Every structure is written in structure tokens, then in C-alpha cells.
């Protein structure tokens, strides 16, 4: 199962801190997953229709939308960080 995490205002907007789901058939990249999430409509469409607003980590490392993903990966979506 993919473990998907949402942080900061993405979590607020989506109303959940994350979810688990099977790797959707035909999806093998971050970009593919973003398309799937976007297709859900509503807040998902709003957020995942503007990928320039979000950052992605695959297995706790920063990744680009071109990064490949596999079953059992941990994929996190979040806004640009603001710590320090």
C-alpha cells in the first residue's frame, strides 16, 4: 500500500493527515499520482491542479514530479517549508 501524507494547509484543506491506498494501475511516478488525486475533484482538484504550490517527498526525501514511485512507498505532499 502507498502511504500518502499531507502537511500544513494541505492537510487542513483536505481534512485529513493522510491515507493509504493501493498503487493505482498505470501509475509509476509522482506526476501520475498527482493526476489521480486531481481527478477526485473538490479540494483535491484545487490543490493538485496547482502543482507549483506543493512540494513532494518520496520516502522522506525531496523529489520531483518525475520521480518514480512503487507500491509501499511513503509519498508526502506539503507546501514550501517555513521553519528555522
Amino acid at each position: 500500500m502507498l502511504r500518502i501524507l499531507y502537511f500544513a494547509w494541505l492537510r487542513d484543506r483536505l481534512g485529513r493527515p493522510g491515507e493509504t491506498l493501493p498503487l493505482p494501475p498505470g501509475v509509476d511516478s509522482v506526476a501520475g499520482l498527482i493526476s489521480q488525486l486531481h481527478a477526485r475533484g473538490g479540494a483535491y482538484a484545487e490543490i493538485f491542479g496547482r502543482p507549483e504550490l506543493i512540494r513532494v517527498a518520496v520516502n522522506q526525501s525531496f523529489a520531483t514530479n518525475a520521480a518514480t514511485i512503487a507500491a509501499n512507498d511513503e509519498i508526502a505532499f506539503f507546501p514550501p517549508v517555513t521553519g528555522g
Partner: protein
Amino acid sequence: MSRVTIRVQAEAFDSAHETTALLAGQTEVGGVGAFTGFVRGGGGLVALELEHYPGMTETMMRQIAESACTRFGLVGCTIIHRVGRLAVGMPIVLVLCASAHRGGALGATEFMMDWLKTHAPFWKREEFADGSTAWVAPRACDDAATARWGTLGA
């Protein structure tokens, strides 16, 4: 081997205690650079709520610290970052860098703060006196400051 300490915690930190720990048994330290970040007041701000990505945060902090040690030849360094609700005036983050010379100590302090600000997964939500809240937006100047250093690897 450089001495690296990384911590994410809700509690306050004691910079004197951390400096003592960093220097214990070391005699070749000529300088310690330090930065402490605080919750800056103004505009009706009451507190910040700091959220992070457990696991990835520690990995990134360690990567930043180790990169600084290699690049600046540090004797050691410490990064402590707090999470949770922090009122105006409270300390948020502490960076300490111990080096033979001041140039390395202060350069590494800047380097670590720039990378922490842009690559450690923390997010701040502001809480105002009227009860409203707002997620802090990233600042373009932080990205520009980090870009000066090239890549994180030494």
C-alpha cells in the same frame, strides 16, 4: 569525526548547556558561531504553532549538519528545533558551530540556517490576538540565500 547533535523537541533549550556539551573534551576550538531564532512579535501576533514531518525532519537536519561539518571543517555542530505552540518572544531554533577559526564557525552557522529555512520540513501557523490563524508563506529571499551555497552536498 565531527560531533553532530540533532534534536526536535517541544521543550525549551539551554544554549549554554548545549555549548558545553559541544565543546566537552575539545581543545582545538577557536570559535563557536551561534544563531537563535525567536518568535518575532508585531501585527497582533500571539504565537506560532510549529508542525513538522517526523522522520524526514531529523534526516534533513542531520544531512544539513553533516554537510556543514564537511564543507567548513567543523569540530562539531548542534541543531535543535522546537515544535508545538510557541508564544511571541520564545526561542524556536538553535544552531551552534564549533571550529578552529571564526570564518568557518560563522559561515557554517549561516549555511545551516539557510538550508534549515528552505529544506527542513517544518511549517509555521500564525495565531493572532483576534483568534484568526494563517499559515506562514515562504520568503523568496530564503531561497535566494540558500542558492548561494549550490547543492547541499559539500
